């Protein structure tokens, strides 16, 4: 299957913005984003086993996703739904279990894009340090990948 690439940008010192186009309707993407049985199937990113997905989809309701990596590291993300516009927008708080003092605000928007859907995911942190820690999590998860990429790049640029 041909897939589009996720675009990650840092619009401000405290933000991370991710965009990605999907070949499906807004309703389908929204379902995959909010239904526990569907979330379980993609949130692991091939890096962990999802151990828990709780979704109480109403304003003020809680959500919690937990997973375990192959080397036994357990982690969870959780928060509260702040704004819900079915098939269009979802605003939640998001706390990483191992950094509970740094909650982020996450806004997911689902917009029609041709015959598909453009997902925009904005993470807003209280500080740059907290934002950087979130970026760092990708580095840790994909450390090996990132290191080989670095090596490739270093090799290709004198």
């Amino acid at each position: 299957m041909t897939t589009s690439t996720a675009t990650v940008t840092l619009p401000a010192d405290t933000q991370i913005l991710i965009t990605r186009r999907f070949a499906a309707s807004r309703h389908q993407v929204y379902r995959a984003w909010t239904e526990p049985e569907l979330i379980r199937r993609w949130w692991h990113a091939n890096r962990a086993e999802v151990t828990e997905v709780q979704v109480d989809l109403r304003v003020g309701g809680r959500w919690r996703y937990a997973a375990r990596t192959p080397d036994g590291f357990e982690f969870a993300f959780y928060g509260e739904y702040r704004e819900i516009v079915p098939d269009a927008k979802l605003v939640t708080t998001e706390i990483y279990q191992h950094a509970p003092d740094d909650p982020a605000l996450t806004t997911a928007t689902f917009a029609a894009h041709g015959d598909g859907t453009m997902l925009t995911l904005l993470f807003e942190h209280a500080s740059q340090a907290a934002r950087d820690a979130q970026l760092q999590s990708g580095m840790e998860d994909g450390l090996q990948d990132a290191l080989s990429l670095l090596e490739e790049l270093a090799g290709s640029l004198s």
Partner: protein
Amino acid sequence: MARAATTTDVFNAVAEPRRRQIVDLLATGERPVNELVEQLQLAQPQVSKHLRVLREVGLVTARDAGRQRLYRLHPPALRPIHAWVAGYARLWSERFDRLDEVLAELTEQGDGDDH
């Protein structure tokens, strides 16, 4: 990524807000130190100290032009930071690729597309 304890890597070098400002200013072109001093409204010794750190990590180079010393940005030194963001992008790319599969299945089932 293991980091050096002092400002000897590019992550630490740009963690300092004033040094990020210098990088931003130099991104628009080569500049002499007095121009940076003026723009940043800092004392020259402080600016020179920041420039030294940026030079140590290879992010800034200097050349003498007459009586002036001109500083310019050397963007390839930012590569490790790009790679760092790329690692995070890959995490989401893998999630989204799995999400594509879920969506393909929903479409096949003719499900979830009723409005």
